[in-house]
């Protein structure tokens, strides 16, 4: 872990100097996890792909303002992806044309998309609808702490707020989600599975 962190800090140093291969390396390292997290929120493969790609393009565009947590850009990427997912129509508009112009698998067919939607539902992560009640920052803090195993202080660092404010937002987000999900049936009452931990 510490070696990985040291490696990533080194890659980030190169990225800050404008090295494209460093951004590509960070994409290889983190995109599977970012994608799975986004899929759980937006609930369909097409939107999740657009949000995931946009989060990495934002990593480049906002590189001078990216906050590392434990020498990793992953928390910033997740927080940014959650922000983009929460306001997808406008959030990813900047890159939509570019992403639409990139090659896609011809056979990312309806069956695969439907399967992913079912899996998302089965994961019990009906955050898709419930999270609409949350602000972008509240949603990012909630995802980082509840699903990705970061402490509230680390989540605060990733989204650029004070730890006390993060704890307050977390409390508020949980209360709102609880209210949103209270009357729903089976899947909502299941505990949300932990994300894979690095």
């Amino acid at each position, binding site marked *: 872990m510490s070696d990985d962190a040291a490696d990533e800090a080194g890659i980030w*140093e190169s990225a*800050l*100097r*404008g*090295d*494209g*291969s460093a*951004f*590509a390396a960070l*994409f*290889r390292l983190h*995109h*599977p996890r970012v*994608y*799975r997290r986004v*899929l759980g929120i937006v609930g369909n*493969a097409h939107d*999740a*792909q657009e949000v*995931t*790609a946009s989060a*990495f*393009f934002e990593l*480049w*565009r906002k*590189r*001078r*303002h*990216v*906050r590392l947590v434990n020498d990793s850009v992953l928390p910033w990427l997740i927080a940014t992806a959650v922000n983009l997912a929460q306001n997808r129509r*406008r959030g990813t*508009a*900047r890159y*939509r*044309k*570019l*992403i639409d*112009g*990139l*090659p*896609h*698998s011809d056979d*990312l067919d309806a069956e*695969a*998309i439907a*399967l*992913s939607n079912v*899996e998302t539902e089965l994961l019990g992560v009906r955050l898709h609808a419930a999270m609409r009640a949350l*602000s*972008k*920052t509240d949603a990012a803090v909630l995802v980082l702490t509840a699903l990705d195993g970061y402490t509230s202080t680390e989540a*605060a660092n990733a*989204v*650029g*707020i*004070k730890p006390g*404010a993060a704890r307050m937002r977390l409390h508020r987000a949980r209360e709102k989600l609880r209210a949103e999900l209270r009357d729903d049936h089976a899947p909502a009452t299941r505990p949300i599975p932990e994300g894979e931990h690095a």
Partner: protein
Amino acid sequence: MSTATMMDPVLAAAVERELAALGAGKSRLERRQRRTRTLSLLLAGVALAGAITGAAAVVSQLPGTTTTVPLSNPVSVTHSGTGTIDLGPAPAHASAVILHIQCLSTGQIRFATEPQGPHQGPSELIMPCTGTKPTPTSSNHTTAKDALLPQAGSTSITITATPGTKWTATASYASQSISPWKVNAHGQSYGVDNKYGEPDLQAAQASNGKLGYIYTKDILNPDRQPPTVYASDGTTVLGHLDIGSDTPSTTPSHGSSK
């Protein structure tokens, strides 16, 4: 794990190629940013034109304008590695620090700034140093009008630098004021962007010289070209923006999959 929970491998490879092309002058992301910069320069040009033609009052009164005024004499410091700049007691109404910083060696410098968007906490500006002269990837100097004030109980700001990074900086307290955006009859906000975000319509000058507004969504989607410049009502057409010939390619420049 099912492939349905993995990103489309063809698209993932294409995104990776797009990122890898950064820094080599071949990336569509960079080309896009150059266009946005062109637009920013044009907007800055609106302000300059106003100042030259005596319409400065009109331009500085554009809704949403951030006005930063120095409140104290500048303090200059030259240092190696992390260091502080003691600005003395803050004047009343100080809300930010104007900071000019110049690299004197290679390394990296960072300092705290005001939030970069609505509902965000303080941000941080990171500046890679490649020496004393500008290079394609680093200008080696920067001026921030929104550096963060000293923490409560302190009169100093901290410049964090990697060990051995030499830098020189000039800083002074400043007051920042932001005028509110205006709202037209259609409920659309108009003015210039600021730390609270972007209004629906942003000030711009048409190629015929008329001052007006373009839709923010036309900046985000610059393929609908050239953007139309409207009056503040968002419907009366005044002209079009001339943003040069650097149009983004609509032909994907990808090769075959790796």
